[in-house]
């Protein structure tokens, strides 16, 4: 574990709480979460429906605000930032992959991918180079001038991944990225994400309810009723054996998706 401690902390959340509703009917979704993500980690967040995993992701990704607690990303306290600062911060430091891709229908694959750097000062030649590298890794270079309605779901999600990476963010948040994909496209996408994580040192936090998806991670965090229930490190384990471990924890945890594959 020594080499892990020497790594830089990218995200540090302390005592994060989130309450929805007004005083009378307040409902606490996150009940004090502490989470530290190191540079180069691929963290999966799992949990049954209603455990607060998407809320946690939104709060960590600065899309939603925590009611209480502090979140530091890249040594910046995002919980104290104003909306305008947060927007700029998201645009420069974070990448997003959504379950339903959220590509802009009116833009081509390339235009979608280049969108996050459209307001930055990066010059065109460098942007072109960066695009070529990423599109190569994701295998979507030939699709550059196609529109989203002309490509498959898997290709759309790769485009979305490209958009999340083009500006070299400090970390990437993925919300059920395989949720709308068939199993083949899903495993291919996850393989690519794992590759990116290892080779390009991209830090990823991914929410999923699918044990197969989380078996690609380097660490899986289990949520239950708004609190961290347990954590699993993959270490040097093979993916199948890590998958089994995840299934075991999930069986204890209960909730949905306990069916054995």
């Amino acid at each position, binding site marked *: 574990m020594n080499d892990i401690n020497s790594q830089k902390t990218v995200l540090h959340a302390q005592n994060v709480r989130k309450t929805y509703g007004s005083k009378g009917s307040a409902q606490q979704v996150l009940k004090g979460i502490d989470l530290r993500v190191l540079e180069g980690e691929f963290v999966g967040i799992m949990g049954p429906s209603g455990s607060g995993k998407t809320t946690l992701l939104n709060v960590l990704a600065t899309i939603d605000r925590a009611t209480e607690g502090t979140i530091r990303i890249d040594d910046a306290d995002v919980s104290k930032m104003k909306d305008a600062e*947060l927007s*700029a911060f998201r*645009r420069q430091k974070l990448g*997003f992959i*959504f379950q339903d891709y959220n590509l802009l229908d009116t*833009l081509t694959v390339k235009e979608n991918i*280049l969108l996050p750097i459209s307001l930055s000062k990066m010059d065109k030649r460098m942007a072109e180079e960066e*695009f070529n590298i990423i599109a190569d890794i994701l295998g979507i270079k030939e699709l550059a001038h196609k529109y989203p309605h002309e490509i498959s779901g898997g290709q759309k999600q790769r485009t979305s991944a490209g958009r999340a990476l083009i500006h070299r963010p400090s970390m990437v948040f993925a919300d059920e990225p395989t949720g709308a994909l068939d199993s083949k496209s899903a495993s291919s996408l996850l393989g690519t994400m794992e590759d990116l994580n290892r080779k390009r040192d991209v830090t990823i936090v991914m929410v999923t309810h699918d044990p197969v998806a989380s078996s690609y991670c380097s660490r899986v965090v289990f949520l239950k009723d708004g609190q961290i229930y347990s954590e699993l490190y993959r270490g040097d384990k093979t993916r199948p054996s890590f998958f089994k471990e995840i299934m075991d924890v999930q069986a204890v945890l209960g909730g949905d998706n306990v069916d054995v594959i």
Partner: protein
Amino acid sequence: MTLFELVIRSIRKNIKHYYLYFFALIFSMSLYFVFATLQHDSSIVERMGADVNFATSFRVAGILLLVIVAIFTIYANSIFLKRRSKEIGLYQLIGLSKLGVARFLIIENMLLGLGALLLGIGCGALVSRLFLLILMKLLGFDVIVGIAFSAAAAVQTVIVFAALIIFTSIQMTLTVYRNTLLELFNAERQGDHPKKPKTVVAAFLALLGIALIIYGYDLSGHMVNDMLFFNMLLVLLSTILGTYLLFRVTIGWLFYQFRKRKNGHLGLLNSLSLAPLMHRMKANANSLTLITVLSAMTLTMVALAYSLYFSAESDTRISLPYDFVFENKEKDAKSFGAELEKAGIRFDHQPVDAVRLKGTIRDLQGKPEESTQGMLFLPAEQLQKAGMKVKVPPKGEAVLYDARVNLEGRTDKEGMGFPKEIVLGKRGETKMRLTNLVVQYVMNFNVYGAQLVTSENTVLELANNMPGSPGYEKVRLDTYQVPGKAERAKASALYAKYVSKDDFEPDFHTQYEGALHSLGLLMFISAFLGLVFLISTGSILYFKQMTEAEQEKRSFKTLRQLGFDVKDIMRGIVRKQLFVFAIPLLIGILHSIFAVKAASILVLSDITVPSVIAMAMYALIYFVFAVLTIGYYRKIVKNAMS
């Protein structure tokens, strides 16, 4: 729950969707009611008396208004239905029969319509007084008007309204019966995707669009000849077709070239303006063309009407340079002068002794240009004394004064080729040089004969030498000018008794008042229709943009999540809205500039100022709608994250 309860519940729940349609109905109803009220108003009818023109103008305008209102309501209804298609599908999905859904929609439509009718008549009754005041002011009547609620107008409105409700109900029933469930559920997601244009064909059509418009513009400049009607049709056709191609192909093609050159590095601004515009170009080509062409027509109509009204005084002055003219009525003239003196009215009296003859004008090669016409030879020295700005031509030469050459389309033929020759006498034995043409009158236009100005001596010579020639007549013209405006009106009343019913001997004041009445009415009707039209087109654009904004909500959410803030996104949207609103307006204005220029021969005065004022007013109101849609977009972008 009965069907009726369901209807009430649905209206209450969906008020957000309904207000658009509801507003369209109220707006149509109140304007129609205002118009009907004016039509039936006794204070106008009394003053205009048995003026047939007045009644006809109002009737024609009423029909036009009806057409606009009907198109507008049906269009608003179709947008409204499209927005609700999912709901209509849902009712069928849970087991309501098509008949049931149709009945449901019709009951709802009637309830909404009844509300709109009452509100519309209420609003109409409130503002009709204002419109009546404006009309009276334009017609030059200085009276305080009281207006009573017009029952006849209300009845007329109810009838029109009932027809509209029947139309929209049929439209709703058709939507329910014609569409499958699948179509209903997908209606909101429709939108075409930009296709790669076939370069050669697209480039050709793109250029053709521009070429057609330029051809139309060019032709409009010189279409006054024997083929006037055919030319007008050709101008209309080529400009409209050109406009359509412009929207359907040219703009899309230019966008495509621009985007291709960007090679994916589009930038946020273009992603939010150019990309969605290209996405909807095909679907929007029709409506943008329609809006452009109709804007051009409205602009032309309003600008011309305003110009005519604005120029009423100067135009009358050009036709009638003198306030009063007596032709060969020296006795009357004297007694008129005496009356003026008695009434204490200041005036200038100047007699002009002219000679009238029949003759022809021909060029120096001897080819006659026109058949024999009446000619009035006027002595320049006396005209100068009467206050006209004329030069004295050398002995034996004449200058033609005619303010209407433009209208008669003769500038091309007669504007050039001077000097020419005037041939007089029984066998054409007397000749005179015609050196030039001046676009101006030096005698009231009703005095018969082409106005030829020569030196006093030349006129005397003609008077002495020509008796017995065809059409020879000595003409004594007594001209009177009354400088004071109020005094001129008094003088006009005194003058009236000297004019027998069969003669056309107008004085300036009477002529001007008459022009003011008919042009004021024209002005009012075109401004009213223009306003209705402007608000309808503006609203249609606004409704369309609202729907588009709703459709793009998800994109805005994504962009906000990716870290673009409201300001960044709004910059792109403002650019898109400017395009959507400004392009039809600019092209419409350009069209109308050429149309107004072509029609400006109807007006003797220069109409640049009134046309610019009218167009600026139009553009200003039009842009209010652009600002409204931008506001709507801002609301959507701001709330996109929640």
